[in-house]
Structure formats: C-alpha cells, structure tokens
C-alpha cells in the first residue's frame, strides 16, 4: 500500500473576476491526520479543496506535498482520492465498473482488479452489489461506493467535499462513524469540507475555520470549541449569547470583569484587554444555569419568553431585567411568563474582542 503523505503545505489566493474567493489561505499540516475545512456556505472551503485536487487552478499561490510542488500537476497525476457531495458515480457503469475504473486505467491484471474491488465492497459493507447500477442504490449506498471508488486506488490524500450533506439525519450520523472508522483503519490523510460544526468536531484532528476566503482559526477541535478567537467562530461553535461590554478590571489568569447594559459580568479571556476596552461576553445556552441567588455575581433576574421542548431538556429564551435576551438550555422545566433567576458561571463566560477591533487570530 502506498504510504500516505508526510506533510501538506499550501498558500492560495483565488479570484473569480473581481471577486476574491480565497485570500492568502494557507496551512501547514502533518500527514496522517483528519483535517476539516469548516465555514458557512460561500466561505471558499470547497474552492480550496478543488484547488488542492487540481480541478480548479489557483489565481496565485503554491501547494506542496512532501516537499514537492504539485499545483501545476493535472488532477490525474496527483494521486489524491476525492468524494463529492452528489456522489458523482458514473451512471452508465455498474458498481463494479465504477470501483474498477481507476484500476483499469492503471492497466492492472483482471484478477487483481476483481480482488481489490471485492475488498473495497467489504470495507464499505456492500458486498454483492457489483452488478447494480448507481440509479438502483440509495443515497447512502451511492456515497459508500463513491468512497470505495476513491479508496481502491490507495490515495495518498483523501479529499471529501461535504460528502454527507445530501443524506438524511440518521444516515448522516451512521456514515460519519463509517468515515471515521475507514480513516483510522487505513491510516489515511483526509481533508474534509463541511459547514456542520458537529461533523467537524467529531471527525477531526485539526479544524480550520474559514470566513470569506480567509482562515480565521485553526487548531484541534477542543481548542476551537472551548477557545474561539472571535465572535464569528464562537457563534459557529454554539455560543449563542453575546453581550457588548466594556472592560472594568482585569485579574490574574485571564479573569475579566466587564459592564454593559446595566449588568456586570465576570468571565475569562485568552485575549489581551485594557480597562475601558470594548469586549464581547459570550456563553453557550447549555452553560447557563437556571436558579441561584440574584444577589451573587453573574446572577440575573429574568422572565421566560419562549420555551421549546427538546425532550431531555428545554430550550428557552428569557428576557433579562436589563433588557437583553438570553438563550438557555436547562433540564429544569420552565414556563412562559415565569420569573426565574439565571446564573452565568464565570468559568463558562468568555470575553472576545469586539467586532471591528481586529478580531482575527
């Protein structure tokens, strides 16, 4: 089996006419990892993947794999496997024909082709499907065949372009686990493009958050999840509550006390602030605690506005006495109109640079 790559390094800019889709988007990563490009639609993540695959030329920049510059190579010479959002199976070929396609182009002996196709069908858990046509398969089965078709060539780098977004929710979770299993078992290097933060966090060793063609934050999933660098990443990672504040005082270990809208909020930060600076306090709905004593720090009185039943817990929007709105997830059942006390645990509140004050890392 051909070894997977040792390292990948690129820095690319892409313009379509006057529109810049990728602006100096660069990264350097070790091989053997699961890397995710995460961002909202239109952030350039798919374009970046297509440039790495060689399907779109970059306007400017370079792509290096294991010390070899590859951005001038045509896609068929790069030895990468790619899986597409809409599967892109060859509709006029059987499952066997689809998986064997790349091997046949390499003029492998028929016996070897048959054996390797067989192995792949077992790997994706669809043995016996050789003679079916893509049109006779479900979406999930088609995507498995598409994965098998790319993997059978032992690609040194796997590129996956939103491979699960056309599948229904249940199948998506199954296939997510499948992709993770195959990646780990075969020791692959994979780049995975998605707009779904749950997919990114659950699959990746390294997450790259993008916005408007620019890299915003890159790091292991825990870091992206716990320490977003700015409001954009925080919003993407599920911090739904944001409060505009001004820093009052700074303590050791990144302790911050800030005030805004008649509230005094304490929390933590990884950024450097000076007293008086604008800062955004952020907390996830599920970190907010319902209950507590309104006399203590970070505890506020609020009126419950809207309640959504989510089964194990409720999601509620509460209106703070100071006027702000707060998203809350709680197992304590609340009812609309009820007056409650909500507490924002200080170790769960993070302070981020205010928008427009140079928030990118």
């Amino acid at each position, binding site marked *: 089996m051909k070894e997977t790559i040792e390292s990948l390094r690129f820095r690319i800019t892409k313009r379509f006419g006057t529109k810049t889709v990728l602006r100096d988007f660069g990264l350097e990563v070790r091989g053997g990892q699961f890397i995710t490009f995460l961002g909202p639609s239109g952030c350039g993540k798919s374009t970046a993947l*297509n440039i790495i*695959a*060689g*399907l779109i030329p970059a306007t400017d920049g370079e792509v290096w794999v294991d010390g070899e510059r590859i951005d001038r190579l*045509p*896609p*068929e010479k*790069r030895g*990468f*496997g*790619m899986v*597409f*959002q*809409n599967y*892109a*199976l*060859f*509709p*006029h070929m059987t499952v066997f024909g689809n998986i064997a*396609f*790349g091997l046949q*182009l*390499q003029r492998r002996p028929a016996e070897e082709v048959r054996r390797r196709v067989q192995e792949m069908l077992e790997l994706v858990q669809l043995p016996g499907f050789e003679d079916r*046509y*893509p*049109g*006779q398969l479900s979406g999930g089965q088609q995507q498995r065949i*598409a994965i098998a*078709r*790319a993997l059978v*060539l032992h690609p040194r780098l796997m*590129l996956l372009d939103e491979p699960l977004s056309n599948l229904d929710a249940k199948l998506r979770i199954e296939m997510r686990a499948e992709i993770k299993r195959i990646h780990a078992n075969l020791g692959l290097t994979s780049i995975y493009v998605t707009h779904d933060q749950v997919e990114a966090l659950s699959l990746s060793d390294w997450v790259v958050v993008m916005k408007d063609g620019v890299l915003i934050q890159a790091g292991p999933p825990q870091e992206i999840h716990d320490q977003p660098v700015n409001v954009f990443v925080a919003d993407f990672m599920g911090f739904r509550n944001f409060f505009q504040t001004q820093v009052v005082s700074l303590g050791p270990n990144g302790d911050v006390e800030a005030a805004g809208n008649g509230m005094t909020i304490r929390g933590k930060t990884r950024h450097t602030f000076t007293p008086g600076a604008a800062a955004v306090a952020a907390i996830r709905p599920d970190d907010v605690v319902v209950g507590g004593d309104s006399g203590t720090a970070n505890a506020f009185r609020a009126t419950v506005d809207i309640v959504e039943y989510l089964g194990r817990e409720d999601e509620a929007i509460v209106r703070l006495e100071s006027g702000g709105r707060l998203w809350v997830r709680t197992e304590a059942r609340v009812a609309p109109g009820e007056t409650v006390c909500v507490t924002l645990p200080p170790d769960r509140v993070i302070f981020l640079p205010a928008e427009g004050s140079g928030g990118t890392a």
Partner: protein
Amino acid sequence: MKRARTGEPSELDLLAIACLAPSLLYVLVLFVYPFLYGIFLSLRPMKVDGFSLANYIAFFSDEYQYKTVGITFRLAVPNTLIVVAASLLFAYNMRRGIWLERTITTILVLPISLGVILLAQGILGFYGGKGWFNQLLLGLGLLEDSLVLTHNFTGVMLSLFMQQFPFCFLMLLGYISGIDPSIENSARTLGANPWTVFRRVMLPLIAPGLAIAFALVFVMSFATFPSAILLGQATGATRTIAIAAYAQAFEQFDMSYASAIAVIMGIFQLAALLVIILLRRRMVMAATMGVGKR
C-alpha cells in the same frame, strides 16, 4: 427506467386520455390523415383505373428518378456526419462556459434566424465566382482560378451545414451542459486524462443525445429542397428526391406519382430513424441517473 404495467385502465388513465385528446386530434387531422391520403393517392395512378403499384414500379425502373435516392443519401449522410461532429466538438468544448460565450453562441446561432432563402443569397454572393471569398484568395495569390463553390454539390453542403449546425449545436450544448460536472471531475481524480474522460465517461453519457441529433439532422437533410434548388443543380448533380417529387406534382401535374415519390422518401427517412433508435436503445444503459433526458 422500466415502469410497471398494470394492464387495467384506472381513472387516471381516462383522465390522461381526455387530456391527450386535443393533441391527438391535431396529429390525426394534420399528420395522419394527409399521410394516409398520400399513400392512397400514390396507389391510384393517373393512367390506370383502380389500385396499382404502377407509380412505384415506374420510379424504380427509371434511372433519372431512382438515382435521386442515391444523390439524396450522398448529400444527407456526409452532411449529417459533419454537422453532428462539428456540433459535438463545439458544444463539448463550451460545456463549462468559455470567454465571450454569449457573443460566440449568438454568432453560431444567428443563421437559424435568417431563413433558408436569405442564407442562400448570402452564400451565392460570398462564395460565388465573383464573391469575396474567391476574390480574396485570388488577390492573395493563393488561387490560380476561382473555386466553384455554388450551383453544385459543395454549395448545397455549405447551405445545409449553415442551416443545421446552429440547431444541432444548441441541442447538444444543452444536453452536454446538463451532465453534472462532478462526474467528469471524479473521473479526473481517478486518473483519467481529458481524452479518457471524453471516451470512457462523457461520450457514453452524451450518446443518447447524439443519436437524437443524428436522427433529426439526417431527416432534415434528406428532405432538403430549397438549398438543393438555389445552391445546387436542380436538374443534375443535386436533384434530390424532394425535387423529383416537386417536379412530378407541379411540372408534370401528376399528383399520384408525386405522392408515390413522397411516400418513398418517407419510407427511407423512417428506416433511417428506426436504425438510429435501435442503436440508441443499445447505448442507453438499464439504469442511469440525473443525466439529461432519455
């Protein structure tokens, strides 16, 4: 895709028939009746009482008449091949859009909007003995003598190409650009160079559309009439079967014989269509997805 047939009419079937009625009537009145009447007419020769195959026998025993079939094939077959091949070349290379695409498409499609007569006049003027084309080549010293490009076989071919290329090109462009680009992208990442992508992936997917293009262009070419008169030699080298039928009807005033010739022409066209459709059915695979119409 195969559909299950139940065999028993349902309410939906009756509704479908009711909805179909106006178009069915249209086809019956404007196509089936005249067609059948033509056949009927062709079997009642002017000089014979009652039904007879005399017109058909006359056609196939008169060399001046039956060689029009050969002439028409010699025009229609190469013209169809050239038109479809050129359309495929252009449409395939324009499938992902190109620079100045709208302008180029407009220029390619313009001849459709002009009509055959204006086109023929233009060709006569431009490619004629005293036309710009010959004058330019003579002036540059590339030619000793004018090329004879009109009032012969070449003239008709030129005219047919210009009429049919835009139509065929647009049809194939629509068909080819309807194929999901990620299909060819996936072939590239699997190691196929552009030529292999065309041969092994795109051509089989385009084939059904190509067959329809072949069929339509062939039928149009086989029925060629104005081009063959205006740019060819209506009594000689380009006396197509349509001209033969016209001559019988409006020069000899033998409607019966003219109908027989028209029926013969129709039989050849239908036979060619049948061959193409049979070939197409072999090309279209049992199950395909999301690629054009079938």
